[in-house]
């Protein structure tokens, strides 16, 4: 779909729930050695009602709370600071509730329906993550769950922007989440980690990343600083076509390219991914964190936002990337997911993120 009239949205908050990662800034580098033994981010959640929530939901809740707090959409006591009707949720997950479905059907086969717990019923529906996020924070606006394959996370970010552009929302909490559990390893044909030692086990991303996507008018009215602007987006059958389309709409140098997850364990950008990014440094999050499926696009956008914010304010911390102080506000990051024809995926998506200062004028009818 074209994006000519739908580029007006900014990112105002980030959150992560990834074992071994202290926060969004860590997305600019690989996970630290020994990250598998770091504290489970789910342990940050407290209170009742966690027992019957699946791991994807709990990971998403942990990341979402941080993003909402960073965007000042919840206060110190966790109360929403804006009308619930003006705020929605867009979740991206391809495997989030596979564990509930697989475990339940196994239980039925072994002990009939009587051995199941009715508390698990809502989690058989793939929207369970998004609905718990809405319930937890009182987000009564449009609520979407994208289960769209490898491109899902980028598609979700774009749907958040479209919901804002269409006047349905002023802002949306966007969460990408995938859990690592036996059901997901079965579906994705990833070998079980029990067969390996600590360092040799094949990675599978286990975590969540959250963003707040907001209209510039809303961010301005709330006095919240944007960390990135959201630019052109395209989903096309060939990855290179998606990249070319967004690059045509936003030409100029690319400061960083976050590349798709590669099929068959390929750990470096393949020529088939297209030359749209030119000579931009490449950031391969799947190589660092393991295949991340529906979480990848959201994670890429969060990494892009961190990189852009640091470029705008100067180097703030050590990292793997060269960052120049006082960078120009025309910095852009290209993010793309799904390899399309190159890897057997059904499509590729591409999205441009811009420096916060490059945000375009406010939306009409968005100041609810």
């Amino acid at each position, binding site marked *: *779909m074209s994006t*000519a009239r739908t580029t007006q949205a900014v990112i105002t908050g980030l959150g992560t729930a990834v074992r071994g990662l202290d926060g969004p800034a860590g997305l600019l580098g690989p996970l630290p050695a020994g990250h598998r033994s770091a504290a489970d981010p789910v342990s940050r959640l407290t209170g009742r009602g966690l027992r019957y929530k699946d791991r994807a939901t709990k990971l998403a809740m942990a990341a979402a709370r941080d993003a909402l707090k960073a965007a000042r959409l919840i206060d110190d006591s966790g109360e929403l600071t804006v009308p619930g009707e003006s705020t929605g949720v867009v979740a991206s997950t391809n495997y989030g509730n596979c564990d509930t479905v*697989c475990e339940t059907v196994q239980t039925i086969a072994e002990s009939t329906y009587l051995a199941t717990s009715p508390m698990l019923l*809502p989690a058989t*529906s793939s929207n369970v993550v998004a609905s718990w996020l*809405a319930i937890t924070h009182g987000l009564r606006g449009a609520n979407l769950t994208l*289960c769209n*394959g490898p491109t899902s996370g980028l598609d979700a970010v774009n749907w958040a922007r*479209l919901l804002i552009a269409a006047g349905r929302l002023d802002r949306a909490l966007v969460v990408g989440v995938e859990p690592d559990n036996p059901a997901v390893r079965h579906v994705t044909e990833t070998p079980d980690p029990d067969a390996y030692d600590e360092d040799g086990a094949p990675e599978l991303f286990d975590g969540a990343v959250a963003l707040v996507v907001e209209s510039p008018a809303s961010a301005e009215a709330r006095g919240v600083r944007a960390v990135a602007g959201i630019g052109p987006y395209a989903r096309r*059958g060939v990855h290179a076509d998606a990249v070319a389309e967004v690059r045509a709409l936003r030409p100029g140098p690319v400061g960083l390219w976050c590349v798709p997850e590669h099929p068959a364990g390929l750990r470096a950008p393949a020529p088939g991914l297209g030359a749209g990014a030119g000579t931009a440094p490449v950031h391969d999050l799947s190589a660092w964190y393991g295949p991340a499926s529906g979480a990848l696009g959201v994670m890429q956008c969060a990494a892009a936002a961190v990189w852009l914010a640091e470029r705008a304010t100067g180097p703030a911390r050590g990292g793997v990337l060269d960052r120049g102080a006082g960078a120009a506000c025309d910095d852009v990051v290209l993010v793309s997911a799904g390899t399309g024809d190159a890897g057997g995926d059904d499509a590729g998506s591409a999205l441009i993120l811009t420096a916060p200062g490059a945000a375009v004028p406010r939306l009409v009818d968005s100041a609810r």
Partner: protein
Amino acid sequence: MSWLVTGMGAVASIGGSVEEIFGSLIAGRSGLAPLRGYDRDSFRAQVAYEIDDRPAQGVDEPLRATRWLERAVAAAAGDAGLGDDLSRVPVLVGTTLRELRSVELSWRDKVPFDAADLHFGTMLRRRFNAADTHTVANACSASLYTLALGTDLLELGAADTVVVAGVDTITESTYGLLDRCYPEAPDRVRPFDRARRGMLQGEGAVAVVLRRESDGPGAGTHVHARVRGVAVNCDAYHPSAPDAKNIAAAVEEAHRRAGVRPADIDLVMLHGTGTPLNDEAESTALGTVFAGLDPSPYMTAIKSMTGHTAGASGLHSLVAAVDVMRRGTVPPTVYLDDPVDAVAGFRLVRGAAERPMEPLRIAQIDSFGFGGLNAVAVVERVDEPPARDAVRDEGAGL
């Protein structure tokens, strides 16, 4: 802005096409049948509204939902004159359970399944060369949610033609957990009846083609209906219990977007699942919205014949509403013998199909899902010369 429905396609337990389904609905013919796909000894409930296309009793196979979606999209695209090339057309698919039944078969019975088939874009790419495809897993309001998203794409100028669809099969996990939830196993879907015992799942798929009204029908020769407005929201209240207040808000927003008043609504296609919680929330919300109107709009709940087709149910109701308005016959809510007090003031059609004297011009379609996801659409009849088969059907007294 308003949008034209220029193509429709559907499959369900009661028919393999829009025409067959409508014929069943007005004949009061239900798709209820003994459970076909699973080991019946594992369940207390023994019936469902399945599509009878498995190789044999008790023998299940993967990718049935994908198969039905392909049929519905092909029918809708053909009807709209798009043919089989959707390479420049966004396709938005609403679903509750995606291909999770295939995941169950893969996990437990070792039936081969490719993870790429969990989302429907894989088939849509292969069959229709469609690349801008989106699997929206929005529970039982999913297909009306995709209708809202489709109208947004058209309004924003992001596309000129959009296919919106819905599909669901029954997963064994959901069937078993529903069985665990109800005090007694439902033997049929009885919306708003005192003897209701809960919801039973149905299977099916549905697709419609949308265009901006200002652009006309494009390659199509049909204008089936006009979409006036679609509202979506979320209760943010409970994972499975609906909230009447927020449902009423969604209905009121749909009216506002459509530029209509409650008195303009001639027909309400109820969500009507036959669960006490849903029936109560929906009747309370509609009692508020239509307060003081006597008589109320005509109302009917087709899940009594299709079962709860979940992510497909909203558009199944919409497609039925188009035919109801076009042909002037309202299908009954079957198995509704003893209505609860909450619907006493509603003009619910039951027993047999009804042909109102007055024309039915504007329909409201309700669709609500787990997680408090609400979607409500307002659709208007478009007068066009009746198609030949429609004349023949009416003559046959359908």
